């Protein structure tokens, strides 16, 4: 049987699931806008995570039924959300005290580029005509203990997002711990990038070809 249409890589849900598995029970988590939001759908049974949204809510719940939407209860992406029993509201300075003070365990962010040192660029292409907008990204990468990036391995134009050195303006330097793409899970170590897991029908050469920095294999596969 010839498989011409064999599936390569993970879809967004599978990527989000990989991230979800790596977040310990009881963690306080900030999820960026976009694919990161999907992570909340894949928390393994028996784990309880608490979501913080930097615009002033700890204990963010699910998206509301439309007719229930409270116009003044939104997440950082300005979408309507809900609050769980046991939630708390606070003002912006208190919210970023929480973030900057190292109280959030995990932040999952999207990326435009990630360097092999874990530098992250996700707020601006640096183009002259672009309106710069940074939001809370720089505070999050500076303050949160563990930064996970979830992103497509390549840009829409087919260029690698994981590269030796970011060409876009940085959000933070040496901040990313692990990168979850549609092709692999890659850890950022002092010694370089290490491939922890590859998606179905992806092999190391295939992955390396699509990556703009040297990839390493763990000496012994981590279990």
């Amino acid at each position, binding site marked *: 049987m010839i498989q011409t249409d064999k599936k390569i890589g993970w879809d967004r849900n599978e990527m989000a699931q990989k991230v979800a598995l790596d977040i310990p029970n009881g963690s306080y988590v900030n999820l960026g806008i976009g694919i990161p939001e999907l992570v909340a759908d894949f928390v393994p049974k028996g784990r309880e995570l608490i979501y913080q949204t930097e615009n002033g809510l700890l204990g963010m719940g699910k998206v509301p039924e439309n007719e229930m939407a409270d116009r*003044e209860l939104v997440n950082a992406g300005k979408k309507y959300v809900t609050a769980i029993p046991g939630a708390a509201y606070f003002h912006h300075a208190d919210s*970023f005290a929480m973030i*900057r003070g190292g109280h959030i365990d995990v932040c999952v962010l999207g990326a435009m580029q990630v360097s092999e040192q874990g530098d992250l660029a996700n707020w601006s292409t640096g183009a002259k005509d672009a309106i710069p907008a940074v*939001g809370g990204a720089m*505070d999050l990468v500076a303050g949160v203990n563990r930064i996970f990036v979830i992103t497509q391995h390549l840009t829409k134009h087919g260029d690698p997002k994981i590269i030796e050195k970011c060409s876009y303006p940085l959000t933070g330097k040496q901040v990313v711990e692990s990168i979850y793409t549609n092709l692999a899970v890659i850890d950022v170590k002092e010694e370089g990038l290490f491939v922890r897991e590859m998606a179905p029908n992806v092999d190391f050469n295939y992955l390396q070809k699509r990556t703009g920095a040297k990839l390493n294999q763990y000496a012994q596969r981590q279990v």
Partner: protein
Amino acid sequence: MINKIVKSAAEAVNGIHDGATVMIGGFGEAGSPIELIHALIDYGAKDLTVVSNNTGSGHVGLAALIENKQVAKTICSFPRTANSKVFPELYHAGEIELELVPQGTLAERIRAGGAGIPAFYTPASLNTPLAEGKESRVIKNQEYVLEYAIKADFALVKAETGDRYGNLLYHATARNFGPIMCTASKVAIVQVKKIVEPGQIDPETVVTPGIFVQKVIEINNPVDESQLVEEEMSYP
């Protein structure tokens, strides 16, 4: 008797002078004091520096204030949103100045302004273009950026409940920048949905103590900014 309640939005914004620095609460549409902003458009003060997280949506509220050419400069963290059309145009035309500040640094600078802290160090923005030209310092083996307090002449804020002393409660994530902006401005002007008698707000739950508020105006049924934007309404 202390009584900070004023009778109209026009009276509330009276005195906002040309060239003033005005903090405007809200995170997107949540907590945006749209009636006060519209009153400020009517009042007509020009050459304002506006400190606000965003730059407004559509052609109402903060976006309308900008569109009306009353704002010379904005200090904010996220000037473009899905529905922001006014700011990008003026920005590209070089008709409005932008000071881009990371959101947490913006919040902390405002909090510092209200707390009498002239400057502080933060790890945010280090090694990024937003730290360029700023002083940095190594403290306990880590490098930090020096940031200065922001103060304002006026703040326009939306809250849920208020009393004649200026004590305030907020609603959900509409709280956002309101409490700190009240502390950092000389004249904090607050629109509330409901005014109550002193003592009806439990002293344990007060979010903004009245000392930080100078004027309170009751707006029972504030317009729904999201709806106005959807309907492509404009002000005035």
